[in-house]
């Protein structure tokens, strides 16, 4: 990626997405830590914003994505409303899941974001199935399924990739490798490596730097175009790093001393892109404005969420199922 073909507009758009993700999560963290407004666990993707941003950029609005417990970034990048998401994290009325799901089940079906998932790896077969549905219905959409390095040790990884390969389904599996599975170094619990597994399962596989949003966006554009054309599955292994703890309250003391600090200093995807934009002639002040706009948006989202009421009590019995009432009838 030389600066000659660097696209400033695209760079600024990516920066805006990454800053919005970062700001959303920083605000959510503050809401949790300082105000105890977020009651459940939230998993921040701070440091990983480039993957969501780059991979989702080439998608159409009617393409699907599926995410994990660490899904704020993917959801925002797919176009979900930050305020509805923040309300969801606070369990309020107007939350994108009506306050029923919280951070770990965030979803926006309008944007074809088919949900975060509280079970590691479970989204892999479901995503393959969404692609199967597209194929059966004769659509030309594609599916992107995000998961972590730890998920590659669960059975659904094999079953879901095999499924996509056997049925020739239009899906991109993205392993967002942030090195850790909760407090465990994933490599200590992994025999062989993830990319080789995907290759052995018959999927064209690309390995990429997940913190270089410019290069990754180009790669993702190529891959997703190919998938839309061939209708066949591919795999992307993106190396990144989780700058925050596993949950917002995890001090992450299991990491080697200084590791996170060094990564923050040298490998922050936002800092990297800012550097490229500056080199391309964008003024620092313009970049700061992008950040400030994102922060303002997310502060406002939190204000709105803070002021939102709790969900209506009766809503707890809605959306369980059509047939059979959740409450005992008297006779």
């Amino acid at each position, binding site marked *: 990626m030389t600066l000659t073909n660097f696209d400033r507009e695209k760079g600024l758009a990516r920066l805006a997405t990454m800053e919005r993700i970062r700001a959303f999560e920083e605000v959510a963290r503050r809401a949790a830590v300082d105000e105890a407004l977020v009651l459940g666990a939230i998993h921040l993707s701070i440091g990983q914003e480039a993957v969501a941003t780059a991979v989702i950029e080439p998608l159409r609005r009617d393409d*699907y994505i*599926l995410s994990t417990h660490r899904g704020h970034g993917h959801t925002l990048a797919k176009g979900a409303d930050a305020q509805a998401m923040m309300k969801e994290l606070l369990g309020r009325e107007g*939350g*994108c*899941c*009506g*306050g*029923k*799901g919280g951070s770990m*089940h965030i*979803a*926006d*079906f*309008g944007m074809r974001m*088919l*949900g975060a*998932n*509280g*079970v590691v790896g*479970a989204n*892999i*077969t*479901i*995503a*393959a*199935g*969404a*692609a*199967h*549905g*597209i194929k*059966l*219905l004769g659509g030309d959409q594609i599916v992107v399924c995000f998961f972590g390095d730890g998920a590659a040790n669960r*059975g*659904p990884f094999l*079953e*879901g990739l*095999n*499924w996509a390969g*056997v*049925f020739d389904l239009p899906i991109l599996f993205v392993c967002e490798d942030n090195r850790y599975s909760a407090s465990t170094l994933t490599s200590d619990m992994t025999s062989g490596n993830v990319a080789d597994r995907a290759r052995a399962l018959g999927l064209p596989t690309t390995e990429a730097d997940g913190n270089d949003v410019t290069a990754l966006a180009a790669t993702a554009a190529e891959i997703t175009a190919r998938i839309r054309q061939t209708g066949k599955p591919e795999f992307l292994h993106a190396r990144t790093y989780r700058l925050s703890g596993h949950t917002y309250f995890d001090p992450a003391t299991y990491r080697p001393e200084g590791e996170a600090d060094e990564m923050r200093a040298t490998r922050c995807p936002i800092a990297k892109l800012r550097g490229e934009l500056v080199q391309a002639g964008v003024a620092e002040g313009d970049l700061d404005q992008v950040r400030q706009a994102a922060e303002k948006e997310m502060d406002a989202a939190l204000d709105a969420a803070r002021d939102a009421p709790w969900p209506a009590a009766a809503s707890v019995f*809605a*959306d*369980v*199922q*059509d*047939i*059979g*009432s*959740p409450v005992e*009838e008297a*006779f």
Partner: protein
Amino acid sequence: MVRMTYADAAKLAVAEAMRADPTVWCVGEDLGRGGVFKQYTGLVEEFGPKRISDAPISEAAIMGAAFGAAMAGTRPIVEMRFADFALCATDELVNQIAKARFMFGGQSRAPMVIRKPMGMWRSSAAQHSQSLESWYVHIPGLVVCCPATPQDNYAMMKAAIACDDPVVYLEHKDIWATEGEVDTSLPGRFGKAGIRRAGMDVTLVSWSNTANLCVQAADRLAEDGINAEVIDLVSLWPWDKRAVLTSVKKTGRLVVAHEAVCVAGFGAEVVATVAQTMVLKAPPVRLGSPRGLIAYAPNLEDQMRVTADMIAAAAKKTMEFETA
């Protein structure tokens, strides 16, 4: 009215639904060769291998992928081959399919029929014989259906395919070949029990193949002048409480029988519900398998079975109680 087998009745329902709605499809191992119990024979010829889809031996993926395809707008019929193997896809069914609509605040639906051939089938041993219907009744988000007759396997299969909720559809392996009259104009209704036989003296409640045994038991009881009312619940969630309570109010006597393990089986729910509502003329009876495992040797296996004779004997005992 057409005479057909329990297997063919479901097949007819599937075929009709597939003709009417191009988004309905079936997926499971070996379906292209008719499925392991031949309950899909001929369908691939009519609908092709995309809609009667084979699958790798990947129960978790069959369940998970069908769910994804349901969210993307299709209506999958999932074949689990043996109810026992469905345990390989428990997370998919219980944590994902049953919960998604609620967790996502109503944004999604999972219109799926999950077929799980259940129950004892001579000398299939402990990993191919289980009846776990009470598990699924305990899981909010799931509809649970256990048809006992060709008529119900036709009508309820149609209803299940039409339903927007995930339906755990438990067919009994031992009655695939059982024949009966099917009236294709009768609609299947969840939560509506069938009164398989009307009677005033004692209420026999059951579902799946044990409902058929209850009818046999009632025939024997009739020879002794006892008029048993046989209630076939057909679906366990929702279940027809009203039919059971109305009947027991009339008879004052209750025998609930099922093939599953008695302890923590759905029979406990029925007995508890009745006991919370009314006082009977005789203690209610539950019949089910001992809390042991299903053996391969036929004489051992038989000791785990609830039979028509056991049901009749239990009913008689409730009759004698009054006179005691």
